[in-house]
């Protein structure tokens, strides 16, 4: 932290310099008139908590990942062996690919459906507030609890979806929702889309509401149809907020854990693991702390790249 700026009033703006001498106050109060000291005091709680529980564990994680710690075993330095071992592990390879696959499709669906819902909600209709509030429900309700409802809907024996499809004549035998690897992955993508879509819809809606209707009217007078109005008027204006939402969503989806943990538990036969669930299975389930920590860290480069893009973009916005 920076030492306090000398002088009583802190010398910030011309206005403050013109102040008469401050009334006699206690030393602490006067010290807090210095911007630097006050800022240090105000930032300390946040920085201490974030340092203790984010920065410190991060460094610990780096250390763990290059040692051979297991539960009840101190371990020793092993270099990059954990990373190499993971890379050659076929379950890890599946989890690694799944994570990208899951993130890509779920984010794409959330963006498309979310945009659609935002455009629908941007119109005037009865019960608009009620509809909007209920649309957000999947995002509010704890993921674990709503995923259980989905798991029950995908149940191998009592699935209501199978029942409905069968009754309507679309299928003649039940679909193996969670008992086949490919199906299970797509079920997870559907549930993730269902849960995350409202975030896209509501945020994009907020963006849409800042676009003046006059622009649309003008475009419409010039003979642009709905699609062209969207593509040439709405989308360019919505791009900044879309980018931010997509970045947030990629980070959340890429590091997802609870949805897979409840829906498939990584199964059948480890075919739907994501990096986070596999790290949990090794690190907590099997007690192989170092290997688990190494697998978690495989997420880091991607997250880092996404955050870096986001920061650069923010800088450019501030510079503009």
């Amino acid at each position, binding site marked *: 932290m920076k030492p306090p700026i000398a002088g009583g009033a802190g010398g910030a703006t011309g206005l403050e310099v013109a102040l008469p001498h401050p009334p006699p106050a206690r030393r602490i109060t006067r010290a807090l008139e210095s911007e630097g000291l006050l800022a240090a005091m105000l930032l300390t709680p*946040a920085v201490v908590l974030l340092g203790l529980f984010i920065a410190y564990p991060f460094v610990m*994680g780096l250390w*763990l990942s290059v040692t051979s710690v297991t539960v009840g075993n101190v371990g020793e330095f092993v270099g990059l062996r954990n990373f190499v071992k993971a890379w050659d592990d076929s379950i890890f390879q599946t989890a690694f690919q799944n994570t990208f696959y899951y993130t890509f499709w779920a984010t794409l669906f959330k963006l498309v459906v979310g945009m659609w819902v935002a455009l629908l909600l941007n119109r005037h209709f009865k019960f608009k507030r009620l509809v909007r*509030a209920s*649309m957000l429900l999947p995002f509010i309700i*704890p993921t674990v609890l709503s995923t259980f*409802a989905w798991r029950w809907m995908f149940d191998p024996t009592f699935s209501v979806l199978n029942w409905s499809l069968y009754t309507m004549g679309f299928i003649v035998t039940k679909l193996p929702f969670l008992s086949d690897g490919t199906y299970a992955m797509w079920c997870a993508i559907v549930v993730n889309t269902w849960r995350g879509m409202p975030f896209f819809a509501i945020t994009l809606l907020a963006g849409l509401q800042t676009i003046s209707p006059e622009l649309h009217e003008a475009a419409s007078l010039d003979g642009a149809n709905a699609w062209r109005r969207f593509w040439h008027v709405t989308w360019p204006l919505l791009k900044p*907020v879309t980018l931010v939402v997509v970045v947030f969503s990629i980070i959340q989806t890429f590091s997802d854990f609870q949805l897979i943990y409840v829906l498939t538990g990584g199964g059948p036969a480890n075919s739907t693991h994501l990096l986070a669930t596999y790290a949990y299975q090794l690190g907590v389930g099997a007690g192989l702390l170092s290997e688990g920590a190494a697998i*978690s860290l495989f997420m880091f480069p991607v997250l880092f790249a996404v955050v870096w893009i986001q920061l650069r973009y*923010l800088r450019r916005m501030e510079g503009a």
Partner: protein
Amino acid sequence: MVVERRWKRWVYFYLPMTFLVVITLFPFYWMFITAIRPDAELYKSWRAAQNAPFWTLQPTLAHVQDLLEKTMFLRWLWNTFLIAIVSTMISLVCGLFAGYALARLRFRGAGMIGTGIFVTYLVPQTLLFIPLADVIRNFHLGNTPWALILTYPTFLIPFCTWLLMGYFKTIPKELEECARIDGATRFGAMVRIIFPIAVPGILSAGIFAFTLSWNEFIYALVFLSSPERKTVPVGVVSELIRGDIYFWGQLMAGALLGSVPVALVYSFFVEYYVTGLTGSVKG
């Protein structure tokens, strides 16, 4: 106005909207119907001649009763509530202070600290849970509510700071300057003039933080072990499934009751929640 024909309004608006609302709400309806359906009806084969798959003719509260009497569900609710409230309070205080400092004060390193807090905003819990479990053990916090009360702020503080910083920037500086001319200290002006104006922002951040803590799963799963210490999501996952057997009636009753508090808070403060949500990405 862009005028459109009636059939177009149906095809492009009412039908898709209805479809989307039904898909959005169906899982909750299914949760509810399963929770009040007797076991005999619940476990009928999918091909059995079921007259009423989408509702039930003999609603029962047996599952709810089981849940409340045979499990520690109410205890979990209380734990979740307490942890969510305390960690939200801590995060709000930290976020208010840090947000004010970053929005208003000029000091060396401001940019760096601001970026640092923003970056931690984007660090997911799953990246750190294994080493963090070690840290918690070293601090002797394992299996206590403090393990969560102190770690939840790691994802709440960045968000609160970010949101409140944006809010403070919209408050005119002149208000503070007037107060300071009248003899208020910097700290006094912040607490008595700026914070009261920021109440809507504080509410938004608080509501959003509360729902995030209620939703948190992996830290609670890893840091807590005894059944009476667990939160609702973890309790439902680990205590309502015995071996490979899923008691769906109880599970759905638990999911439903576990969602009610957070849904209630949300329904009272929808507007604040939406502000928090959209503010969380705009900054």
